Protein backbone atom coordinates (compact mmCIF):
# COMPACT_ATOMS: atom_id res chain seq x y z
CA UNK A 1 0.00 0.00 0.00
CA UNK A 2 2.64 2.49 1.02
CA UNK A 3 4.69 1.70 -2.03
CA UNK A 4 1.94 2.47 -4.52
CA UNK A 5 2.34 6.27 -4.63
CA UNK A 6 6.10 5.91 -5.02
CA UNK A 7 5.56 3.60 -8.00
CA UNK A 8 3.37 6.16 -9.70
CA UNK A 9 5.49 9.19 -8.93
CA UNK A 10 8.41 8.60 -11.33
CA UNK A 11 6.00 8.44 -14.26
CA UNK A 12 4.66 11.94 -13.68
CA UNK A 13 7.62 13.94 -15.02
CA UNK A 14 7.72 11.93 -18.24
CA UNK A 15 4.01 12.51 -18.73
CA UNK A 16 4.52 16.21 -18.23
CA UNK A 17 7.47 16.19 -20.60
CA UNK A 18 5.40 14.52 -23.30
CA UNK A 19 2.77 17.25 -23.16
CA UNK A 20 5.05 19.91 -24.62
CA UNK A 21 7.97 20.81 -22.31
CA UNK A 22 6.11 21.17 -19.02
CA UNK A 23 3.33 23.41 -20.31
CA UNK A 24 0.77 21.12 -18.66
CA UNK A 25 2.80 21.54 -15.49
CA UNK A 26 2.22 25.27 -15.56
CA UNK A 27 -1.51 24.94 -16.08
CA UNK A 28 -1.94 22.50 -13.24
CA UNK A 29 0.32 24.62 -11.03
CA UNK A 30 -1.78 27.70 -11.81
CA UNK A 31 -4.91 25.67 -11.07
CA UNK A 32 -3.61 24.61 -7.69
CA UNK A 33 -2.56 28.16 -6.82
CA UNK A 34 -5.98 29.44 -7.83
CA UNK A 35 -7.61 26.84 -5.60
CA UNK A 36 -5.50 27.74 -2.60
CA UNK A 37 -6.16 31.41 -3.38
CA UNK A 38 -9.89 30.71 -3.19
CA UNK A 39 -9.24 29.10 0.22
CA UNK A 40 -7.40 32.20 1.37
CA UNK A 41 -10.20 34.47 0.13
CA UNK A 42 -12.68 32.39 2.08
CA UNK A 43 -10.55 32.81 5.18
CA UNK A 44 -10.43 36.58 4.63
CA UNK A 45 -14.22 36.66 4.29
CA UNK A 46 -14.73 34.68 7.51
CA UNK A 47 -12.15 36.77 9.32
CA UNK A 48 -13.73 40.02 8.12
CA UNK A 49 -17.14 38.79 9.25
CA UNK A 50 -16.10 37.92 12.79
CA UNK A 51 -13.62 40.76 13.31
CA UNK A 52 -16.35 43.37 13.21
CA UNK A 53 -18.71 41.30 15.31
CA UNK A 54 -16.18 41.25 18.15
CA UNK A 55 -16.85 44.94 18.74
CA UNK A 56 -17.65 45.67 22.34
CA UNK A 57 -20.87 47.53 23.07
CA UNK A 58 -24.01 47.82 20.97
CA UNK A 59 -23.14 47.07 17.32
CA UNK A 60 -26.14 49.07 16.11
CA UNK A 61 -24.95 52.15 17.97
CA UNK A 62 -21.54 51.69 16.40
CA UNK A 63 -22.93 51.20 12.91
CA UNK A 64 -25.15 54.23 13.05
CA UNK A 65 -22.93 56.54 15.05
CA UNK A 66 -23.55 60.19 14.33
CA UNK A 67 -26.51 59.58 12.04
CA UNK A 68 -30.22 59.79 12.53
CA UNK A 69 -32.13 56.67 11.64
CA UNK A 70 -35.84 56.18 11.78
CA UNK A 71 -37.38 53.51 13.94
CA UNK A 72 -38.05 51.13 11.03
CA UNK A 73 -34.45 51.15 9.87
CA UNK A 74 -33.21 50.46 13.38
CA UNK A 75 -35.69 47.63 13.81
CA UNK A 76 -34.55 46.11 10.50
CA UNK A 77 -30.89 46.27 11.55
CA UNK A 78 -31.66 44.76 14.94
CA UNK A 79 -33.73 42.01 13.36
CA UNK A 80 -30.72 41.07 11.23
CA UNK A 81 -28.46 40.97 14.26
CA UNK A 82 -30.92 38.90 16.27
CA UNK A 83 -30.75 36.05 13.80
CA UNK A 84 -28.53 33.06 14.62
CA UNK A 85 -24.88 33.75 13.83
CA UNK A 86 -24.96 30.98 11.19
CA UNK A 87 -27.81 32.63 9.31
CA UNK A 88 -26.08 36.01 9.52
CA UNK A 89 -22.93 34.47 8.11
CA UNK A 90 -24.75 32.85 5.21
CA UNK A 91 -26.41 36.19 4.42
CA UNK A 92 -23.02 37.85 4.54
CA UNK A 93 -21.46 35.23 2.26
CA UNK A 94 -24.27 35.50 -0.24
CA UNK A 95 -23.71 39.16 -0.73
CA UNK A 96 -20.53 40.50 0.82
CA UNK A 97 -20.43 43.40 -1.59
CA UNK A 98 -23.78 44.89 -0.71
CA UNK A 99 -24.24 44.43 2.98
CA UNK A 100 -27.18 46.82 2.76
CA UNK A 101 -25.54 49.03 5.34
CA UNK A 102 -24.70 52.59 4.39
CA UNK A 103 -21.51 54.36 5.26
CA UNK A 104 -22.21 56.31 8.45
CA UNK A 105 -20.34 59.37 7.17
CA UNK A 106 -21.54 59.56 3.60
CA UNK A 107 -25.03 58.08 4.11
CA UNK A 108 -24.62 56.15 0.87
CA UNK A 109 -23.96 52.45 0.20
CA UNK A 110 -20.30 51.81 1.04
CA UNK A 111 -19.42 50.32 -2.35
CA UNK A 112 -20.72 53.44 -4.13
CA UNK A 113 -18.45 55.59 -1.98
CA UNK A 114 -15.49 53.29 -2.63
CA UNK A 115 -16.17 53.38 -6.37
CA UNK A 116 -15.67 57.16 -6.35
CA UNK A 117 -12.29 56.86 -4.65
CA UNK A 118 -10.70 53.91 -6.46
CA UNK A 119 -9.16 55.56 -9.51
CA UNK A 120 -6.89 58.15 -7.88
CA UNK A 121 -5.40 55.32 -5.79
CA UNK A 122 -4.88 53.09 -8.81
CA UNK A 123 -3.13 55.92 -10.68
CA UNK A 124 -0.92 56.87 -7.73
CA UNK A 125 0.05 53.33 -6.72
CA UNK A 126 0.75 52.06 -10.22
CA UNK A 127 2.94 55.08 -11.00
CA UNK A 128 4.88 54.66 -7.76
CA UNK A 129 5.18 50.88 -8.14
CA UNK A 130 6.54 51.01 -11.70
CA UNK A 131 8.99 53.84 -10.92
CA UNK A 132 10.23 52.28 -7.68
CA UNK A 133 10.65 48.82 -9.24
CA UNK A 134 12.64 50.18 -12.19
CA UNK A 135 14.85 52.49 -10.13
CA UNK A 136 15.23 50.04 -7.24
CA UNK A 137 16.23 47.15 -9.52
CA UNK A 138 18.74 49.36 -11.37
CA UNK A 139 20.35 50.44 -8.09
CA UNK A 140 20.38 46.85 -6.82
CA UNK A 141 22.05 45.54 -9.98
CA UNK A 142 24.76 48.17 -9.95
CA UNK A 143 25.50 47.71 -6.22
CA UNK A 144 25.28 43.92 -6.18
CA UNK A 145 27.53 43.41 -9.19
CA UNK A 146 30.38 45.47 -7.74
CA UNK A 147 29.93 44.42 -4.14
CA UNK A 148 31.78 46.65 -1.67
CA UNK A 149 32.37 49.45 -4.20
CA UNK A 150 31.75 53.09 -3.26
CA UNK A 151 28.47 53.03 -5.16
CA UNK A 152 27.41 49.86 -3.33
CA UNK A 153 28.21 51.23 0.10
CA UNK A 154 26.55 54.61 -0.53
CA UNK A 155 23.45 53.11 -2.12
CA UNK A 156 23.05 50.50 0.65
CA UNK A 157 23.34 53.27 3.24
CA UNK A 158 20.78 55.45 1.48
CA UNK A 159 18.33 52.61 0.85
CA UNK A 160 18.55 51.39 4.46
CA UNK A 161 17.81 54.94 5.63
CA UNK A 162 14.85 55.22 3.26
CA UNK A 163 13.66 51.83 4.50
CA UNK A 164 13.73 53.17 8.08
CA UNK A 165 11.60 56.22 7.23
CA UNK A 166 7.89 56.44 7.93
CA UNK A 167 6.66 57.22 4.40
CA UNK A 168 4.17 59.84 5.59
CA UNK A 169 6.98 61.72 7.34
CA UNK A 170 9.00 61.71 4.13
CA UNK A 171 5.88 63.07 2.43
CA UNK A 172 5.52 65.86 4.98
CA UNK A 173 9.19 66.80 4.65
CA UNK A 174 8.88 66.97 0.85
CA UNK A 175 5.70 68.97 1.27
CA UNK A 176 7.28 71.53 3.59
CA UNK A 177 10.33 71.83 1.28
CA UNK A 178 8.66 71.99 -2.12
CA UNK A 179 5.13 73.16 -1.45
CA UNK A 180 5.37 75.51 1.54
CA UNK A 181 8.93 76.44 0.60
CA UNK A 182 11.71 76.90 3.15
CA UNK A 183 14.81 79.03 2.72
CA UNK A 184 16.32 78.34 -0.71
CA UNK A 185 13.53 75.97 -1.75
CA UNK A 186 10.72 77.70 -3.61
CA UNK A 187 7.23 76.37 -2.97
CA UNK A 188 6.47 75.24 -6.50
CA UNK A 189 4.34 72.13 -6.05
CA UNK A 190 0.68 72.10 -5.05
CA UNK A 191 -0.06 71.04 -1.48
CA UNK A 192 -2.81 68.56 -2.25
CA UNK A 193 -5.63 67.30 -4.44
CA UNK A 194 -5.46 65.90 -7.95
CA UNK A 195 -6.21 68.97 -10.07
CA UNK A 196 -6.63 72.74 -9.81
CA UNK A 197 -10.36 73.37 -9.43
CA UNK A 198 -12.07 74.58 -12.59
CA UNK A 199 -9.72 72.93 -15.09
CA UNK A 200 -11.07 70.39 -17.58
CA UNK A 201 -9.33 67.11 -16.61
CA UNK A 202 -9.09 65.93 -20.24
CA UNK A 203 -7.66 69.11 -21.81
CA UNK A 204 -3.88 69.30 -22.31
CA UNK A 205 -3.58 71.88 -19.57
CA UNK A 206 -5.67 69.73 -17.25
CA UNK A 207 -3.54 66.64 -17.84
CA UNK A 208 -0.31 68.56 -17.20
CA UNK A 209 -1.86 70.04 -14.08
CA UNK A 210 -2.77 66.56 -12.83
CA UNK A 211 0.79 65.33 -13.42
CA UNK A 212 1.97 68.35 -11.46
CA UNK A 213 -0.27 67.31 -8.58
CA UNK A 214 0.87 63.70 -8.88
CA UNK A 215 4.58 64.55 -8.68
CA UNK A 216 5.08 64.89 -4.92
CA UNK A 217 2.92 61.99 -3.67
CA UNK A 218 4.32 59.70 -6.38
CA UNK A 219 7.89 60.75 -5.55
CA UNK A 220 7.27 60.06 -1.85
CA UNK A 221 5.93 56.56 -2.46
CA UNK A 222 8.62 55.80 -5.04
CA UNK A 223 11.37 56.68 -2.56
CA UNK A 224 9.63 54.69 0.17
CA UNK A 225 9.22 51.55 -1.94
CA UNK A 226 12.42 51.48 -3.95
CA UNK A 227 14.52 50.80 -0.85
CA UNK A 228 13.28 47.26 -0.42
CA UNK A 229 13.51 46.44 -4.14
CA UNK A 230 17.09 47.69 -4.28
CA UNK A 231 18.09 45.68 -1.18
CA UNK A 232 16.46 42.45 -2.39
CA UNK A 233 17.80 42.82 -5.93
CA UNK A 234 21.28 43.43 -4.56
CA UNK A 235 21.30 40.41 -2.29
CA UNK A 236 19.86 38.02 -4.87
CA UNK A 237 22.44 39.21 -7.42
CA UNK A 238 25.18 38.65 -4.83
CA UNK A 239 23.83 35.10 -4.33
CA UNK A 240 23.86 34.57 -8.09
CA UNK A 241 27.51 35.65 -8.43
CA UNK A 242 28.53 32.65 -6.34
CA UNK A 243 26.95 30.17 -8.77
CA UNK A 244 29.07 27.88 -10.94
CA UNK A 245 27.38 28.81 -14.20
CA UNK A 246 28.80 32.32 -13.95
CA UNK A 247 32.31 30.86 -13.75
CA UNK A 248 31.50 28.92 -16.92
CA UNK A 249 30.20 32.03 -18.63
CA UNK A 250 33.38 33.91 -17.76
CA UNK A 251 35.60 30.95 -18.67
CA UNK A 252 34.25 30.91 -22.20
CA UNK A 253 35.44 34.49 -22.51
CA UNK A 254 32.19 36.43 -22.24
CA UNK A 255 32.51 40.13 -21.47
CA UNK A 256 31.68 41.14 -17.91
CA UNK A 257 28.77 43.26 -19.13
CA UNK A 258 27.26 40.33 -21.01
CA UNK A 259 27.77 37.90 -18.11
CA UNK A 260 25.78 40.31 -16.02
CA UNK A 261 23.08 41.13 -18.52
CA UNK A 262 22.48 37.69 -20.04
CA UNK A 263 23.25 35.31 -17.18
CA UNK A 264 23.21 36.82 -13.71
CA UNK A 265 20.47 39.45 -13.86
CA UNK A 266 17.70 37.32 -15.45
CA UNK A 267 18.09 34.74 -12.67
CA UNK A 268 18.41 37.29 -9.90
CA UNK A 269 15.33 39.20 -11.09
CA UNK A 270 12.88 36.52 -9.98
CA UNK A 271 12.80 37.20 -6.22
CA UNK A 272 12.46 40.93 -6.88
CA UNK A 273 9.62 40.47 -9.36
CA UNK A 274 7.84 38.23 -6.84
CA UNK A 275 8.36 40.91 -4.23
CA UNK A 276 6.88 43.64 -6.43
CA UNK A 277 3.63 41.66 -6.56
CA UNK A 278 3.72 40.45 -2.97
CA UNK A 279 4.29 44.00 -1.79
CA UNK A 280 0.77 45.11 -2.71
CA UNK A 281 -0.15 44.84 0.97
CA UNK A 282 2.75 47.08 1.95
CA UNK A 283 2.04 49.45 -0.93
CA UNK A 284 -1.56 49.81 0.20
CA UNK A 285 -0.41 50.62 3.75
CA UNK A 286 1.80 53.39 2.39
CA UNK A 287 -1.10 54.77 0.38
CA UNK A 288 -3.25 55.21 3.49
CA UNK A 289 -0.86 57.64 5.17
CA UNK A 290 0.63 59.30 2.10
CA UNK A 291 -2.74 60.03 0.51
CA UNK A 292 -3.75 61.57 3.82
CA UNK A 293 -0.71 63.86 3.86
CA UNK A 294 -1.27 65.01 0.28
CA UNK A 295 -5.10 65.11 0.47
CA UNK A 296 -5.09 62.72 -2.49
CA UNK A 297 -8.74 61.69 -2.82
CA UNK A 298 -8.19 57.92 -2.98
CA UNK A 299 -8.94 54.89 -0.85
CA UNK A 300 -6.14 55.80 1.57
CA UNK A 301 -7.66 59.19 2.38
CA UNK A 302 -11.04 57.49 2.58
CA UNK A 303 -9.64 55.01 5.14
CA UNK A 304 -8.26 57.91 7.16
CA UNK A 305 -11.66 59.59 7.20
CA UNK A 306 -13.31 56.29 8.07
CA UNK A 307 -10.96 55.84 11.04
CA UNK A 308 -11.62 59.33 12.31
CA UNK A 309 -15.38 58.64 12.28
CA UNK A 310 -15.13 55.77 13.03
CA UNK A 311 -17.19 54.65 10.08
CA UNK A 312 -17.27 50.90 10.74
CA UNK A 313 -19.16 49.70 7.63
CA UNK A 314 -16.79 51.65 5.39
CA UNK A 315 -13.71 50.36 7.23
CA UNK A 316 -14.98 46.80 6.90
CA UNK A 317 -15.48 47.17 3.16
CA UNK A 318 -12.07 48.79 2.63
CA UNK A 319 -10.40 46.05 4.66
CA UNK A 320 -12.11 43.41 2.53
CA UNK A 321 -11.15 45.14 -0.71
CA UNK A 322 -7.49 45.56 0.28
CA UNK A 323 -7.26 41.93 1.44
CA UNK A 324 -8.78 40.60 -1.77
CA UNK A 325 -6.41 42.76 -3.84
CA UNK A 326 -3.48 41.22 -1.98
CA UNK A 327 -4.76 37.67 -2.47
CA UNK A 328 -5.16 38.25 -6.21
CA UNK A 329 -1.70 39.83 -6.41
CA UNK A 330 -0.25 36.79 -4.64
CA UNK A 331 -1.77 34.39 -7.15
CA UNK A 332 -0.61 36.51 -10.08
CA UNK A 333 2.90 36.64 -8.61
CA UNK A 334 3.10 32.86 -8.22
CA UNK A 335 1.79 32.16 -11.71
CA UNK A 336 4.04 34.76 -13.37
CA UNK A 337 7.11 33.41 -11.62
CA UNK A 338 6.14 29.82 -12.45
CA UNK A 339 5.70 30.78 -16.10
CA UNK A 340 9.19 32.31 -16.19
CA UNK A 341 10.95 29.78 -13.98
CA UNK A 342 9.91 26.10 -14.24
CA UNK A 343 11.92 25.22 -11.10
CA UNK A 344 9.30 26.63 -8.74
CA UNK A 345 6.39 24.55 -10.10
CA UNK A 346 6.10 22.09 -7.23
Amino acid at each position, binding site marked *: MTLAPADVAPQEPSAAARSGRGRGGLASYAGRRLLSGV*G*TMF*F*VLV*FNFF*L*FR*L*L*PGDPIALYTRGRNMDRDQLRELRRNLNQPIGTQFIDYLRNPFSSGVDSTQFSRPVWDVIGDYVWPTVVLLSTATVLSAVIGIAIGIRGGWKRGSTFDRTSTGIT*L*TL*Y*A*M*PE*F*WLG*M*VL*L*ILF*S*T*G*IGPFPGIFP*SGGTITPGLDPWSLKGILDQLWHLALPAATLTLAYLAEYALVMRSSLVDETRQDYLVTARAKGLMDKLVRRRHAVPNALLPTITLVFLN*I*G*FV*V*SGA*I*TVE*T*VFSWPGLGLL*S*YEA*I*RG*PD*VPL*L*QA*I*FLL*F*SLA*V*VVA*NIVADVVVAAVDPRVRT
Partner: protein
Amino acid sequence: MSARAVRRARRRAALGRFWASFRRERAGLVGLAVLAVFVLLALTAPLLFSPDQLKVTEATGDVLAPPTAGFPLGTDESGRSVLALVVWGTRVSLLVGVAATVISMAIGTFVGISSGHYRGVPGSVLERLTDWFLVIPFLPLAIALATVLGSSLLNVIVVIGVTSWPGTARLVRAQTLSVEARPYLERARVLGGGHWHQMSRHVLPNVMPLVLANTTLTVAIAILSETTLSFLGLGDPFRVSWGSMLDSAFSTGAISAGAWWYLLPPGLCVVAVVLAFTLVGRAMENVLDPRER
Protein backbone atom coordinates in the same frame (compact mmCIF):
# COMPACT_ATOMS: atom_id res chain seq x y z
CA MET B 1 31.26 19.86 37.57
CA SER B 2 27.52 19.50 37.70
CA ALA B 3 25.47 19.34 34.54
CA ARG B 4 24.18 22.83 35.16
CA ALA B 5 27.66 24.28 35.55
CA VAL B 6 28.73 22.66 32.27
CA ARG B 7 25.73 24.11 30.53
CA ARG B 8 26.42 27.56 31.91
CA ALA B 9 30.06 27.45 30.90
CA ARG B 10 29.09 26.38 27.38
CA ARG B 11 26.57 29.16 27.08
CA ARG B 12 29.08 31.73 28.24
CA ALA B 13 31.61 30.46 25.71
CA ALA B 14 29.03 30.61 22.90
CA LEU B 15 28.10 34.15 23.88
CA GLY B 16 31.79 35.10 23.93
CA ARG B 17 32.28 33.69 20.42
CA PHE B 18 29.20 35.56 19.23
CA TRP B 19 30.45 38.86 20.64
CA ALA B 20 33.91 38.33 19.15
CA SER B 21 32.44 38.06 15.65
CA PHE B 22 29.82 40.76 16.25
CA ARG B 23 32.59 43.19 17.17
CA ARG B 24 33.92 42.94 13.62
CA GLU B 25 30.61 44.26 12.20
CA ARG B 26 31.19 47.99 12.24
CA ALA B 27 27.66 49.02 11.19
CA GLY B 28 26.22 46.78 13.89
CA LEU B 29 28.35 48.46 16.54
CA VAL B 30 27.23 51.91 15.41
CA GLY B 31 23.62 50.72 15.64
CA LEU B 32 24.23 49.37 19.13
CA ALA B 33 25.73 52.70 20.25
CA VAL B 34 22.77 54.66 18.87
CA LEU B 35 20.37 52.33 20.67
CA ALA B 36 22.30 52.77 23.93
CA VAL B 37 21.89 56.55 23.66
CA PHE B 38 18.14 56.29 23.09
CA VAL B 39 17.64 53.78 25.91
CA LEU B 40 19.54 56.14 28.20
CA LEU B 41 17.32 59.04 27.05
CA ALA B 42 14.18 57.00 27.68
CA LEU B 43 15.32 56.03 31.19
CA THR B 44 16.42 59.52 32.21
CA ALA B 45 13.56 61.48 30.59
CA PRO B 46 11.92 62.34 33.96
CA LEU B 47 15.24 63.71 35.23
CA LEU B 48 15.85 65.84 32.13
CA PHE B 49 12.37 67.30 31.75
CA SER B 50 9.70 67.32 34.42
CA PRO B 51 6.38 65.74 33.40
CA ASP B 52 4.77 69.17 33.91
CA GLN B 53 6.37 70.29 30.65
CA LEU B 54 4.08 67.88 28.79
CA LYS B 55 0.93 69.50 30.17
CA VAL B 56 -0.80 71.81 27.71
CA THR B 57 -2.03 73.99 30.57
CA GLU B 58 1.46 74.58 31.97
CA ALA B 59 3.04 75.48 28.64
CA THR B 60 5.14 78.64 28.80
CA GLY B 61 6.29 79.18 25.22
CA ASP B 62 4.67 80.90 22.24
CA VAL B 63 2.60 78.90 19.77
CA LEU B 64 4.71 77.20 17.05
CA ALA B 65 7.74 79.38 17.81
CA PRO B 66 11.01 78.63 16.00
CA PRO B 67 14.03 77.42 18.04
CA THR B 68 15.37 79.89 20.61
CA ALA B 69 17.78 79.62 23.54
CA GLY B 70 14.94 78.71 25.92
CA PHE B 71 13.40 76.18 23.53
CA PRO B 72 16.27 74.62 21.56
CA LEU B 73 13.87 72.81 19.19
CA GLY B 74 11.11 75.41 19.21
CA THR B 75 7.57 74.89 20.48
CA ASP B 76 4.47 72.99 19.39
CA GLU B 77 0.92 74.20 18.73
CA SER B 78 0.23 74.74 22.44
CA GLY B 79 3.59 76.26 23.38
CA ARG B 80 5.28 73.16 24.80
CA SER B 81 8.97 72.48 24.23
CA VAL B 82 9.45 70.15 21.25
CA LEU B 83 12.70 68.89 22.80
CA ALA B 84 10.89 67.74 25.96
CA LEU B 85 8.19 66.06 23.87
CA VAL B 86 10.73 64.21 21.73
CA VAL B 87 12.66 62.97 24.77
CA TRP B 88 9.47 61.76 26.47
CA GLY B 89 8.26 60.25 23.20
CA THR B 90 11.30 57.95 23.23
CA ARG B 91 9.76 56.06 26.14
CA VAL B 92 6.51 55.17 24.37
CA SER B 93 8.14 54.33 21.05
CA LEU B 94 10.75 52.01 22.57
CA LEU B 95 8.27 50.43 24.98
CA VAL B 96 5.74 49.68 22.24
CA GLY B 97 8.45 48.43 19.89
CA VAL B 98 9.94 46.02 22.42
CA ALA B 99 6.69 44.84 24.05
CA ALA B 100 4.93 44.24 20.73
CA THR B 101 7.94 42.32 19.49
CA VAL B 102 7.88 40.07 22.57
CA ILE B 103 4.23 39.19 21.85
CA SER B 104 4.92 38.67 18.17
CA MET B 105 7.98 36.50 18.87
CA ALA B 106 6.12 34.38 21.42
CA ILE B 107 3.25 33.67 19.03
CA GLY B 108 5.54 33.25 16.02
CA THR B 109 7.92 30.87 17.79
CA PHE B 110 5.13 28.81 19.29
CA VAL B 111 3.20 28.48 16.01
CA GLY B 112 6.38 27.93 14.00
CA ILE B 113 7.78 25.16 16.21
CA SER B 114 4.41 23.44 16.60
CA SER B 115 3.67 23.50 12.88
CA GLY B 116 7.12 22.11 12.13
CA HIS B 117 7.00 19.49 14.88
CA TYR B 118 3.53 18.01 14.51
CA ARG B 119 3.28 16.28 11.17
CA GLY B 120 -0.07 15.64 9.61
CA VAL B 121 -3.25 17.60 10.17
CA PRO B 122 -2.32 19.91 13.13
CA GLY B 123 0.92 20.96 11.47
CA SER B 124 -0.61 21.72 8.12
CA VAL B 125 -3.52 23.59 9.73
CA LEU B 126 -1.04 25.85 11.53
CA GLU B 127 0.95 26.27 8.33
CA ARG B 128 -2.16 27.31 6.43
CA LEU B 129 -3.10 29.72 9.20
CA THR B 130 0.35 31.30 8.99
CA ASP B 131 0.04 31.68 5.23
CA TRP B 132 -3.36 33.28 5.55
CA PHE B 133 -2.26 35.81 8.11
CA LEU B 134 0.81 36.52 6.00
CA VAL B 135 -1.46 37.51 3.13
CA ILE B 136 -3.73 39.91 5.05
CA PRO B 137 -2.26 43.40 4.58
CA PHE B 138 -0.79 44.61 7.85
CA LEU B 139 -2.00 48.19 8.16
CA PRO B 140 -5.66 47.67 7.21
CA LEU B 141 -5.78 44.75 9.66
CA ALA B 142 -4.10 46.77 12.39
CA ILE B 143 -6.50 49.66 11.76
CA ALA B 144 -9.49 47.33 11.94
CA LEU B 145 -8.22 45.76 15.18
CA ALA B 146 -7.33 49.10 16.75
CA THR B 147 -10.79 50.45 15.92
CA VAL B 148 -12.37 47.36 17.46
CA LEU B 149 -10.25 47.48 20.62
CA GLY B 150 -10.16 51.25 21.15
CA SER B 151 -7.05 53.35 21.66
CA SER B 152 -4.79 52.78 24.63
CA LEU B 153 -1.10 52.02 25.01
CA LEU B 154 -1.75 48.35 25.81
CA ASN B 155 -4.04 47.96 22.79
CA VAL B 156 -1.46 49.43 20.44
CA ILE B 157 1.05 46.88 21.75
CA VAL B 158 -1.43 44.02 21.37
CA VAL B 159 -2.49 45.09 17.88
CA ILE B 160 1.07 45.28 16.58
CA GLY B 161 2.02 42.06 18.39
CA VAL B 162 -0.81 39.94 17.04
CA THR B 163 -0.48 41.22 13.47
CA SER B 164 3.27 40.81 12.98
CA TRP B 165 3.94 37.19 13.95
CA PRO B 166 3.43 35.26 10.65
CA GLY B 167 6.85 36.16 9.22
CA THR B 168 8.59 34.82 12.32
CA ALA B 169 6.39 31.71 12.35
CA ARG B 170 7.36 30.85 8.80
CA LEU B 171 11.06 31.37 9.48
CA VAL B 172 10.93 29.29 12.68
CA ARG B 173 9.00 26.54 10.94
CA ALA B 174 11.65 26.16 8.25
CA GLN B 175 14.39 26.03 10.89
CA THR B 176 12.40 23.53 12.99
CA LEU B 177 12.07 21.19 10.02
CA SER B 178 15.82 21.18 9.51
CA VAL B 179 16.49 20.65 13.24
CA GLU B 180 13.94 17.83 13.43
CA ALA B 181 15.80 15.93 10.73
CA ARG B 182 18.95 15.71 12.85
CA PRO B 183 19.86 12.39 14.54
CA TYR B 184 19.79 13.65 18.13
CA LEU B 185 16.08 14.28 17.85
CA GLU B 186 15.58 10.71 16.77
CA ARG B 187 17.59 9.71 19.83
CA ALA B 188 15.36 11.85 22.05
CA ARG B 189 12.26 10.23 20.55
CA VAL B 190 13.65 6.72 20.95
CA LEU B 191 14.47 7.40 24.59
CA GLY B 192 10.83 8.29 25.12
CA GLY B 193 11.00 12.11 25.14
CA GLY B 194 7.49 13.61 24.83
CA HIS B 195 6.47 16.26 22.34
CA TRP B 196 6.92 19.07 24.86
CA HIS B 197 10.38 17.81 25.85
CA GLN B 198 11.49 17.57 22.22
CA MET B 199 10.20 21.00 21.34
CA SER B 200 11.37 22.88 24.42
CA ARG B 201 14.70 21.16 25.10
CA HIS B 202 15.95 20.28 21.63
CA VAL B 203 14.25 22.37 18.97
CA LEU B 204 13.83 25.69 20.80
CA PRO B 205 17.51 26.19 21.78
CA ASN B 206 18.50 25.61 18.16
CA VAL B 207 15.91 27.97 16.77
CA MET B 208 16.59 30.68 19.35
CA PRO B 209 19.62 32.41 17.70
CA LEU B 210 17.65 32.89 14.50
CA VAL B 211 14.67 34.20 16.47
CA LEU B 212 16.86 36.72 18.24
CA ALA B 213 18.33 38.08 15.01
CA ASN B 214 14.81 38.30 13.63
CA THR B 215 13.66 40.03 16.85
CA THR B 216 15.84 43.08 16.33
CA LEU B 217 14.45 43.46 12.81
CA THR B 218 10.90 43.05 14.13
CA VAL B 219 11.43 45.77 16.75
CA ALA B 220 12.32 48.15 13.91
CA ILE B 221 9.10 47.32 12.09
CA ALA B 222 7.06 47.52 15.31
CA ILE B 223 8.36 51.03 16.01
CA LEU B 224 7.46 52.10 12.48
CA SER B 225 4.01 50.56 12.96
CA GLU B 226 3.50 52.43 16.23
CA THR B 227 4.43 55.67 14.50
CA THR B 228 1.98 54.96 11.68
CA LEU B 229 -0.89 53.95 13.97
CA SER B 230 -0.36 56.99 16.21
CA PHE B 231 -0.21 59.22 13.14
CA LEU B 232 -3.61 57.86 12.13
CA GLY B 233 -4.94 58.74 15.58
CA LEU B 234 -5.11 55.15 16.81
CA GLY B 235 -2.48 55.51 19.54
CA ASP B 236 -2.95 56.34 23.20
CA PRO B 237 -4.38 59.89 23.19
CA PHE B 238 -2.91 60.64 26.63
CA ARG B 239 0.70 59.78 25.91
CA VAL B 240 3.23 61.57 23.76
CA SER B 241 4.97 59.40 21.18
CA TRP B 242 6.87 60.31 18.03
CA GLY B 243 3.90 59.22 15.98
CA SER B 244 1.41 61.31 17.95
CA MET B 245 3.72 64.34 17.60
CA LEU B 246 3.69 63.89 13.82
CA ASP B 247 -0.09 63.56 13.99
CA SER B 248 -0.43 66.86 15.89
CA ALA B 249 2.08 68.55 13.60
CA PHE B 250 0.08 67.44 10.58
CA SER B 251 -3.39 68.19 11.89
CA THR B 252 -2.55 71.60 13.39
CA GLY B 253 -1.08 72.90 10.15
CA ALA B 254 2.62 72.90 11.02
CA ILE B 255 3.36 72.15 7.36
CA SER B 256 1.68 75.19 5.86
CA ALA B 257 3.16 77.25 8.71
CA GLY B 258 6.60 75.98 7.66
CA ALA B 259 7.31 74.74 11.22
CA TRP B 260 10.15 72.37 10.29
CA TRP B 261 11.37 72.29 13.92
CA TYR B 262 8.18 70.48 14.91
CA LEU B 263 8.30 68.03 12.00
CA LEU B 264 11.97 67.06 11.81
CA PRO B 265 12.92 65.94 15.37
CA PRO B 266 10.34 63.15 15.86
CA GLY B 267 10.85 61.84 12.32
CA LEU B 268 14.64 61.87 12.58
CA CYS B 269 14.41 60.00 15.89
CA VAL B 270 12.25 57.31 14.27
CA VAL B 271 14.72 57.00 11.40
CA ALA B 272 17.69 56.79 13.80
CA VAL B 273 16.16 54.13 16.05
CA VAL B 274 14.70 52.02 13.25
CA LEU B 275 17.95 52.21 11.29
CA ALA B 276 19.91 51.26 14.42
CA PHE B 277 17.76 48.18 15.05
CA THR B 278 18.02 47.22 11.37
CA LEU B 279 21.82 47.54 11.40
CA VAL B 280 22.11 45.45 14.58
CA GLY B 281 19.75 42.83 13.14
CA ARG B 282 21.68 42.60 9.86
CA ALA B 283 24.97 42.33 11.75
CA MET B 284 23.55 39.51 13.88
CA GLU B 285 22.37 37.71 10.77
CA ASN B 286 25.83 38.04 9.25
CA VAL B 287 27.39 36.55 12.38
CA LEU B 288 24.90 33.67 12.55
CA ASP B 289 24.94 32.92 8.82
CA PRO B 290 28.38 31.57 7.96
CA ARG B 291 27.75 31.98 4.23
CA GLU B 292 28.15 35.74 4.53
CA ARG B 293 31.63 35.67 6.07
